[in-house]
């Protein structure tokens, strides 16, 4: 009987028990190797540095999509504010990058003037450089830790995590679910974005943080090389994030999460504290998003409050839906596929289309196409791109359909059960 072989204590490491994890890691490894060999920094130069950056950024988007899939695909929480966590991670690392680079420049220029500069002179010099653009010349309180890389790295994890924890605690405790929760998360990211747009938010208002691609103290290192380092970092983060997420959803925890998604009340009556589970997965996912943002923005070079606009989080949901929610590789494929396609269409590389004498430019029409495909996927292929893998698997496993479902003759047959 097949049950005897399938049913029993789990053996071996996670990657062996779930072949999809192994396949994913192998693909990611090969891809990383391929890009490295073809890059300008370390290889033949077929792939330009800017495209290496695009690919690195794409891997970060895959990571945040993974985080989104954990909360939405597995736990049923449609968060439409996840890019807020991503942006906060970016701001946290951006503050250090900008501070430290400006400090080096200021120290250099003051050193040229002869007298050794005082600490106050350096500090006010940096502040003027950074905040001149918003008409200020002093550091706002939130920059208190910006001089320290370890502290800002901690902030990458702590700030999004804490926001998610507080927000989630308030929302889940009041049993806000479904569309109301989605609206709340939209409101959260919108409020955050509007706040950051203000000049006195202390994060340079609509200018945002810029020059993030220049690593302090490494002006001599060419961007071609830096881009490859960040690409590796992105791949590593995605790989680790994928393994961690697979571990979380593989065991009983995943079982409970999917239970919450399908029937929250039932899980509650089984004795599980549903709110605590939601809070856990929401916070973890926010931290993952924060880390993804912290690796993304040094590659993008600039972050501004528009990145936290509600539309960004909606795009994220669209990627996961198109890729196939409820399976981790689906989210990754969706994010990679749609965001690269989006780069291609909006980059002006896609040829214009002539329809009845009207010139259809993809730069304008791409969002329409994306919207239509989102509707189409939702209606006709709810499993998304990831559903294709089911078709392949179905070919390999034997058909066992069409038999009685129950042990006795009166039991329903499969067709009836579907109805």
């Amino acid at each position, binding site marked *: *009987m*097949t*049950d005897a072989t*399938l*049913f*029993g*204590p*789990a053996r071996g490491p996670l990657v062996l028990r779930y072949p999809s994890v192994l396949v994913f890691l192998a693909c990611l490894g090969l891809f990383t190797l391929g890009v490295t060999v073809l890059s300008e920094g370390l290889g033949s130069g077929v792939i330009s540095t800017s495209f290496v950056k695009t690919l690195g950024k794409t891997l970060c988007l895959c990571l945040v999509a993974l985080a989104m899939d954990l909360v939405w695909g597995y736990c049923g929480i449609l968060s439409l504010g996840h890019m807020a966590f991503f942006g906060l991670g970016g701001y946290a690392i951006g503050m250090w990058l900008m501070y430290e680079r400006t400090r080096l420049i200021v120290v250099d220029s003051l050193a040229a003037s002869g007298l050794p500069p005082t600490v106050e002179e350096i500090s006010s010099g940096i502040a003027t450089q950074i905040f001149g653009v918003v008409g200020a010349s002093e550091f706002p309180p939130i920059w208190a830790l910006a001089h320290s890389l370890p502290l800002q790295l901690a902030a990458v994890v702590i700030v999004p995590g804490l926001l998610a924890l507080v927000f989630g605690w308030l929302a889940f405790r009041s049993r806000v679910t479904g569309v109301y929760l989605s609206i709340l998360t939209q409101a959260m990211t919108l409020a955050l974005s509007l706040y950051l747009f203000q000049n006195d938010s202390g994060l340079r208002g609509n200018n945002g943080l810029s020059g993030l691609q220049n690593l302090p103290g490494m002006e001599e290192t060419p961007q071609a090389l830096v881009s490859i380092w960040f690409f590796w970092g992105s791949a590593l983060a995605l790989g680790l994030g994928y393994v961690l997420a697979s571990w*979380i959803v593989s*065991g*009983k*925890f995943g*079982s*409970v999460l*999917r*239970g919450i998604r*399908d*029937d929250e*009340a*039932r899980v*509650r*009556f*089984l*004795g*599980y*504290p*549903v709110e*605590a*589970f939601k809070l*856990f997965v929401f916070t973890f996912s926010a931290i993952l998003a924060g880390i993804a943002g912290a690796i993304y923005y040094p590659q993008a070079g600039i972050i501004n409050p528009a990145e936290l606009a509600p539309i960004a989080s909606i795009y994220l949901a669209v990627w996961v839906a198109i890729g196939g929610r409820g399976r981790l590789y689906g989210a990754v494929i969706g994010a990679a596929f749609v965001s690269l396609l989006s780069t291609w269409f909006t980059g002006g590389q896609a040829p214009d289309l002539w329809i009845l004498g009207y010139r259809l430019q993809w730069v304008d029409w791409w969002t329409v196409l994306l919207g239509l495909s989102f509707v189409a996927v939702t209606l006709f292929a709810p499993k998304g791109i990831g559903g294709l893998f089911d078709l392949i698997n179905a070919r390999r496993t034997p058909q066992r359909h069409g038999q009685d*479902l*129950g*042990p*006795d003759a*009166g*039991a*329903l047959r*499969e067709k009836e*059960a579907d109805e």
Partner: protein
Amino acid sequence: MSTLLEVSGVSVSFDGFKALNNLSFAIGPAELRAVIGPNGAGKTTFMDVVTGKTRPDEGRISWGEPPMSLLGKSESTIAMAGVGRKFQRPTVFEDQSVADNLMMALKKPRSPFSVLVFKAERDDYARVEELARVIGLETQLMRKSGELSHGQKQWLEIGMLLAQEPQLLLVDEPAAGMTTAERQKTTEILREAAKTRAVVVVEHDMDFVRRLDCKVTVLHEGSVLAEGSLDHVTQNQEVIEVYLGR
């Protein structure tokens, strides 16, 4: 006989409609009890109140020995205290296998961190297999529970309840939509379960209640109308009026 659950003077109203009206009810630690009553008598609300889904406007609910109050406790706390509930419609996690469903229900620590590091041991698998045998699904363990027949889903849900090892089982219309053979098996499972714990069965179907052969409580308009053996309550003039006069 000591009491496991004692509900006294509980009232619940929804927008002025009194779903429960000064309801009092008690059950011992190993007892099978059928609760019957016409639609709107407050049977489901009664279960909601006991399991913490609905907060009563007034009244007391005391549980266990030494007695503790269940008022104001969350659903999961009450479930962990030993109250298991089966819903009217079979609610199993259709996307997951029979084994996963049972494994999730097994009595184990429920906090997120202990669930995260939980690793099922040989004993746990043995327990799941044993439960599957009780509910007649031992050959279906790896099947998605969504593929099961209606009756099998009902059994799976009862199996999940047993896995929780509750002291009190609240079962809402277990025989709805079952074939005669399936009903017979359900009766057996419930009577077996009632040997070691309290079981409250809410049921419409008089034949099924007769087969359970236990004490019956009749609810009407949110309070107890009659209590006793089935024959006793069916001869009660008020009960006849309530059932036939509608």
